[in-house]
């Protein structure tokens, strides 16, 4: 059913090096190289040096968005997944409803609801205007971080629910037999084992989260996508900036996948 995440088809594999160079591949790579050469030679790239500083900063903003929302979202996902397994009932329903609503509506809509909706609501309350938070509430990025965090928490919460439910009952029973209290059992056995089980999906979820970050450009956060949009407006070049943008995201995805694989190899796993 729909409680399976899309992580199953998310991009988490890279080609292996075994027997990569076959005759037809060499031909294909030559064609690709010629194409690339044509793109570099015949298209306009003279704008790149001028904007390189801004682009670099945009990449930093994108990565900051990705890291902060993934970490915060994961921290939220643990309790959301847990209460769906253990109850109490009202909390269970609440978590379930949260996941259904967030996963059933487009992220762009949520983002605009927060930014335009709350943004138009907050100024009406004088006590908010005088609070220390006000300078931040007039910025765009808190809304972007909030929306992305909520989205990640909902999708990953669903994964954590499955992970908590999937920890073999015998292990928890053994912990109880040792006389561990509920909290100790959770801290020593249940949580680590659940996170362990959820790790493989985390890579795919993070890649999907990276792909969601450019949406914050629609609410005036200056990430790498927004920088490229600015380039297109100022230089009237249609394709080249978009191609560069695609390349940047390709590289970021590749780095993510390789990085995750490195960590996965360092964590000892036996079977599933």
């Amino acid at each position, binding site marked *: *059913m*729909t409680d*399976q*995440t*899309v992580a*199953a*088809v*998310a*991009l988490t594999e890279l*080609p292996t090096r075994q027997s990569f160079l*076959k005759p*037809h*591949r060499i031909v*294909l790579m030559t064609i690709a190289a010629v194409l690339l050469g044509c793109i570099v030679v015949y298209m306009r790239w003279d704008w790149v040096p001028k904007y390189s500083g801004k682009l670099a900063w945009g990449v930093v903003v994108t990565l900051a968005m990705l890291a902060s929302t993934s970490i915060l979202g994961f921290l939220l996902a643990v309790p959301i997944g847990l209460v769906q397994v253990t109850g109490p009932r009202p909390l269970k329903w609440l978590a379930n409803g949260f996941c*259904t*609503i967030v*996963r*059933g*509506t*487009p*992220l*762009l*809509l*949520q983002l*605009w*609801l927060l930014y*335009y*909706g*709350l*943004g*138009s*609501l907050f*100024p*009406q309350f004088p006590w908010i205007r005088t609070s220390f938070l006000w300078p931040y509430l007039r910025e765009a990025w808190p809304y972007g971080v909030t929306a992305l965090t909520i989205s990640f928490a909902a999708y990953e919460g669903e994964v954590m629910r499955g992970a908590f439910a999937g920890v073999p009952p015998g292990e928890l029973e053994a912990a109880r037999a040792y006389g561990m209290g509920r909290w100790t059992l959770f801290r020593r056995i249940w949580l680590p084992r659940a996170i362990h089980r959820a790790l493989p999906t985390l890579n795919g979820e993070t*890649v999907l989260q*990276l*792909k*969601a*970050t*450019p*949406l914050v450009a*629609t609410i005036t956060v200056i990430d790498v*996508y927004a920088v490229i949009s600015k380039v297109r407006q100022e230089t009237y070049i*249609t*394709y080249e900036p*978009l*191609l560069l*943008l*695609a390349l940047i*995201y*390709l590289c970021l*995805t*590749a780095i993510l996948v390789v990085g995750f694989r490195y960590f996965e190899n360092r964590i000892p796993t036996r079977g599933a």
Partner: protein
Amino acid sequence: MAADPGSLINWSLLALSPPGWGGVLLAGFVNSLKIAVGGYALGLVLGTGGAFGKLYGSPVIKDLLEVYTTLVRAIPELVLILLLYYAGTDLLNQLLTALGFGAADVSGLAAGIFVIGVVQGAYSTEVLRGAIKAVPAGQIEAARAFGMSPTQIMRRVTLPAMLPHAIPGLSNLWLIATKDTALLAVVGFSELTLVTRQAAGSTKAYILFFCAAGVLYLLLTLASNIAIRLIETRARRGMAEPA
């Protein structure tokens, strides 16, 4: 900016006829639905071809498909939509002028369906490939032993037998397709999210309209879930209950 808090729940704004915006919202919703259905169908066609190509195609076809699925799954949908939207309409116009037709004005609907379809195609290629691989090889061998042609095998054995394996992934993709249509708001196509923003902007009742649109999307998701469950029970008929 400061609207009085009472305007938060001014239900008359949702009336179906002007000055209410309900009709506009519903028209946008219908547009979203059209794109979702069209894009999903196109994605299924591309995905079926892609899956068979990846499993049984020549090495060159396999590699090209690998490039296609990798690119689409690594680049944000928003960027792909922009690229395909401009490049697709551009190429089509150049093709038409080359063939001696005048440049066509590509409708937003067709462009949207094309863009969502290409994105969906990459994902459904992967889903269907996994599902085809899950069909026991003996069943396909048996079909070959009966002397069926490849197309007959596909129609009679492979596609029906892989369907139960593919349904979870495909239903996920359908839900993604419905939500991806919202991204077309960025290229100015008047689907639900964009008209919602226009309605909210002109009436200043932001929360009301965004929540109303959210409810529409949610209803679509919930209705889809019910339909998916029915399809799943039908596809699984005669199979052992999953453990």
